[in-house]
């Protein structure tokens, strides 16, 4: 039951933050003078990307914890964190493509280094499933998954540096599109949306952990019931 602790207040906080975030996006934040209404996808796309990347790195840190402590629950936490980040990652790629189509006229833009790096990271993490589920022995499965999570977590920053370097020689970027110089209202809205997305991630992560834990307990009980003399 330890997994389920705090799930209820967390869910309520997530709902409140999401509602407040959306209200700010539509009624408070000014419409972007340059891109118009479409720019509002920024409040979903960017927090989602940040939370997904943090989720990948967090998965790597939990994997280190698993290898250190040999506690299988940390492997489960790492797995669920990566699982959730991959789902968010798909959302990032889709919203990114919509935004690119609306503001630059193409569904995919290769000279946007952040988007390209994100695609590479996403493709790499998709291998987590075939790797994990091709190993039957639970202990070896947990260990190999953790090693992958650590290597991939370390890969994330290198990849971003490399892709950015590949671009910056040809197109110097003076001002980053998603950088810090947002006007006050936009910044507040963005921060609330980021908090909402982070809360959503933590809630879903906890929920999935709880359900996995419950499913495993149920399976154990069934096995015991089947083995018990009737």
């Amino acid at each position, binding site marked *: 039951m330890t997994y389920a602790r705090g799930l209820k207040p967390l869910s309520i906080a997530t709902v409140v933050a999401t509602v407040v975030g959306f209200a700010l996006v539509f009624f408070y934040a000014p419409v972007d003078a340059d891109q118009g209404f479409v720019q509002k996808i920024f409040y979903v796309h960017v927090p989602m990307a940040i939370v997904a990347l943090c989720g990948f790195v967090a998965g790597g840190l939990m994997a280190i914890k698993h290898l250190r402590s040999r506690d299988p629950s940390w492997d489960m936490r790492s797995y669920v964190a990566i699982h959730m980040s991959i789902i968010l990652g798909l959302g990032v790629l889709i919203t990114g493509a919509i935004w690119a189509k609306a503001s630059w006229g193409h569904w995919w833009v290769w000279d946007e280094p952040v988007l390209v790096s994100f695609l590479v990271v996403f493709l790499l993490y998709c291998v987590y499933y075939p790797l994990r589920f091709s190993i039957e022995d639970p202990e070896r499965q947990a260990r190999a998954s953790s090693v992958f999570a650590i290597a991939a977590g370390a*890969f994330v920053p290198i990849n971003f540096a*490399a892709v950015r370097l590949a671009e910056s020689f040809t197109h110097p970027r003076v001002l980053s599109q998603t950088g810090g110089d947002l006007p006050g209202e936009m910044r507040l809205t963005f921060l609330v949306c980021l908090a909402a997305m982070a809360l959503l991630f933590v809630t879903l992560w906890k929920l999935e952990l709880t359900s996995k834990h419950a499913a495993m307990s149920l399976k154990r009980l069934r096995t015991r019931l089947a083995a018990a003399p009737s």
Partner: protein
Amino acid sequence: MIRSASAILRKDLRLEARTKESVPAMLLFSVTAFVLFHFGLDRDSLDGELASGVLWVTLLLASVIGVTRLFAAEREQGGIDGLLLSPADRTGLFLAKAAALFVYLALVELVALPAFTLLLLGPGLQPELLLILLLANLGLASVGALVSALASEGRARELVVPLMLLPLLTPLLIAAAGATEPLFSGDGGPEDLGRWLGLLSLYDLVFVLLSVAVFDYLLDD
């Protein structure tokens, strides 16, 4: 550690010399890929970015073959248990496997590069390319040994190796292709060579350290 590593390396190289499983296959694949690129691009000679891209993508894809086979003998015939039971330590095993892959790659490049020059490349080769190859092979060898060990844990080795290796090698491809491109342009010297080599070295350093750090946990029964 160095002694056990060099013993495992000698074993691998002897095995390869007798069975001829990886290197000839990688080589054949590279030359076939050059022929395919000739028809696919419909060009008789390449230069600049196209040449460096074709060369590096081919070498990376060829390395998939070597990486898939790297732990094959140990896994299929149970040799891995013998290695793990022996007092040889895991870091030594990693170093030996990475060194073996490094040697395979060097052998492949020794033939594939002249073949590439002969078949497709417009301008000649330049000595700076050696340095790029050296650093790239180092990165390929350390990432390859790690991926091979990881993938050989499960049943889906042939599936997992290319899917995992190629995204992991993207930064290496960016740096190596970026550094090679001015060398193949024919005109002018290498301009950004230093920066690309810096990126390659950083990549090598991170993945060598990372692989050594996690390898102990991977093969721990």
